[in-house]
């Protein structure tokens, strides 16, 4: 390409580098910071089970260290559970809407680019399809076909330049419903175990819940299940025991 690209579009970078930046931008828009890696209500449910179990066990460890001879208060954990259920549900919805807002901004920006920087978009498209092995007359024809329809072009740029997927994300409220049920299940199980088996019920249930949730999450994300389960349980035990000993030391 003989003509130098305007700085506002490529910002002085080569087309290939610009495409890498675009992919990064797409990845940033489609992920949830510190949220479940996979979108959807099931992932949110499993994530909440893990987080609620961890929070309960850490609080249990602190109380066990600071007031060892006092009976652990069931109402305290019940209130704590309600607060966590509301928090986790709301946060899940907020994270989902945040992601959606970022995605919508990206699509709006891309449409603007298509409308105002057609030549540069054509260069990007040419670079992408040349990398796929198209060349000569065929490459020219493919680019012409794609450039003919702005709707089609927008879809191609979203999917291939930014690496985004269409029609795969669940509505934030649907995701939050998963989070709600995850929090509710975890809180209920932990409270019941505390009620019926005050000394060891809660730690054992927390470990069981986090183990099951980690196993299912890993399966959903197509990772090694046993590996993930063991690491999560180990991390929980480490976090709660560290909290316990620090609280003991400080008291």
């Amino acid at each position, binding site marked *: 390409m003989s003509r130098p690209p305007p700085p506002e579009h490529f910002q002085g970078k080569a087309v290939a580098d610009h495409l890498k930046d675009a992919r990064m931008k797409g990845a940033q828009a489609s992920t949830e910071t510190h949220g479940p890696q996979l979108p959807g209500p099931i992932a949110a449910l499993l994530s909440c089970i893990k987080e609620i179990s961890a929070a309960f066990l850490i609080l249990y460890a602190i109380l066990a260290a600071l007031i060892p001879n006092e009976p652990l208060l069931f109402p305290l954990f019940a209130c704590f559970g309600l607060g966590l259920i509301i928090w986790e549900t709301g946060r899940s919805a907020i994270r989902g809407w945040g992601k959606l807002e970022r995605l*919508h901004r990206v*699509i709006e920006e891309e449409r603007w680019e298509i409308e105002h920087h057609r030549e540069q978009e054509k260069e990007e498209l040419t670079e992408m399809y040349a990398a796929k092995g198209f060349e000569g007359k065929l490459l020219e024809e493919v680019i012409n076909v794609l450039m003919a329809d702005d709707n089609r072009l927008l879809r191609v740029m979203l999917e291939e330049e930014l690496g985004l997927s269409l029609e*795969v994300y669940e509505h934030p409220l649907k995701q939050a419903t998963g989070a709600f049920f995850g929090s509710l299940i975890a809180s209920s199980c932990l409270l019941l175990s505390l009620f019926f088996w005050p000394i060891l019920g809660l730690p054992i249930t927390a470990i069981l819940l986090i183990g099951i949730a980690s196993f299912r999450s890993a399966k959903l994300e197509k990772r090694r299940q046993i590996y993930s389960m063991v690491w999560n349980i180990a991390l929980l035990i480490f976090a709660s025991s560290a909290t316990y000993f620090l609280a003991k030391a400080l008291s």
Partner: protein
Amino acid sequence: MRSDVHPYIFDEFFASGREETISPFLTPSSRKWGKNLPLKSAIIAAILLALSFGLFFFHKEASYLCLSSVYFLVGTPALLNSIEDLRNMEINIDVLMTLAALLSIIIGSGLEGALLLVLFELSGAMENMVTEKTKGALYSLRKLSPKTALVVETDGTFVERAINEVEIGAPILVKAGEVVPLDGTVISGSSFVNLVHLTGESEPIAKRVEDTVQAGAYNLDGTLTLKVDRAASESTLSRIITLITQAQGAKPKLQRLFDKFGKRYSVTIILLSLFFALTFPYFFSIPFFGIEGSVYRALTFLIAASPCALIIATPTAYLSAISSCARKGVLLKGGVILDALASCSIIALDKTGTLTSGKLTCVEVAGIHNAQLPTQTALAIAAGLETHAVHPISEAILTQAAKQNVLPSEITDFKSVPGYGLQGNATIDGTSYPVFIGHPDFIAQQLDPALWMEKIGPWKTLNTFLLIGTSLYIFHFEDEIRKESFAALSSLQNEKNMKPVILTGDHTENAHVVADTLNIKTIYPNLRPEDKLKKVGELSKEGGLIMVGDGVNDAPALARATVGISMGKIGSATAVDASDVVFLHDDLSLLPWLIDKSRKTLRIVKENLALALAVICFATTPALLGYIPLWLAVILHEGGTVIVGLNSLRLLATDS
């Protein structure tokens, strides 16, 4: 495997202002989760508020738990809106309501504050539901307008290009059944095109070499090659889109007046409250704090002056009237339309599809030269030929034949000449005759010029000709006037004192026939979309104007008129979107009923506003002077709200 994304979804998404209910990123099944969210949250908050009120007398903590949920659900959006307004340096009713509701917590009246917020959110959500219209109009037009054109390259190959990349002068190919993408001149081929949604003319128009064709026209039968005359941004459809945008911008908005009033009202009330809180101790020797304190009185004044009844005075009346109209098959896009309707004194009606049914009817078959065969035979042959065609004239001839129990004749060697007509051979009493039907020019080719001038020349519109050997027949068509037009127009002129006028893209002769039949004195024929818009602008200066129409060509005028009314069944999607009122059953007899309903609505809105203002005046001043305690001010305030709501419900009746 995920489903395929239709290309149009992006247009719809952007036209909607990035609505999450049609977000291209969400799975189709989960999009419905985002539908009417403000309304859903307001309803849940209302239930929680009722629960909180019930629990208040038995278990205060449980009541507060429910109350905190109410504040979260409706208080957070109200707070966000208020912050947004304040960032834009705007102090309006939103800010006042939020401030009053939040301050009510401080003086221990959280329930009243929550009630204000719930009612406020409910009215806002309902208003949103009925006023979302302008985005759709442009979307429909863009949907009608093709995005690509098939450009004929110099080597004879065809390349599909985006219409905004096609240069002026480039040749483009338009096949049968396609919509013309750009304005152009025919350089080869011939065809009939249908312009009914662009110009209102129901008759198919023949297009041949050197004829111009507008973007948006529907190519019926042949293939046309056009030389592009205008860039995409200046095509007929683009101009209509621009016209609609301008018209919508110029449209009078009663809501703006209300907002303007609300802004001043809110600023005044907030400043007054602040003033009273700070100065009363100096004037009346009362403390700042405590139940007799100036801060308490100022807050009571602020809550009493919160325009709750004022806010629901108009939407509840409008919603009741809207609901009543919906049961009659009249869809109103927003309550303020009723206000505007009541102020109108002129009614402009499109002819084709509005006063008439828009469907051609064959009213006469007559022999005009050497007609030896009976007209029944001519009809049978015409029906035999038209069986193979698809345009409105074919439909009218086939309907007429069926009505007269005439069976279509068998036609051999059938041939369609796009843009001209149909031809073939028909056998009558054992003799085969060449037969032709179609455009006068097509028939003229089969006759000598003198005969053509004498027999066909005088006939202008809504006719087609049939030639059987040397026998010439004429088929005359009419666009049938709707039966209900007579009573509706009579009632509008005599009982509602409205002045009817006809605005049409059709010829003067056709317009006069309809106007004379319906006793309409003023007609404006041969109007293009921009002429209609201009005429509507001129007429609007004389008084409020209702425009009734159905075609894309009516859309700018519908949007510009004080009130635009479209026909739901026959009307184009664009006209329906650009209008304020849709008659779902295309029933014109509802026009007088609607005018009545709008006038009654205006009367009730005025009663409501007077009552709401009276309650505010009655409650605020004594509250400020310390004569009315907070609980009584709240009861007066909410009591006024209930009475206003009940008064509005009177509009639910459908038999006004």
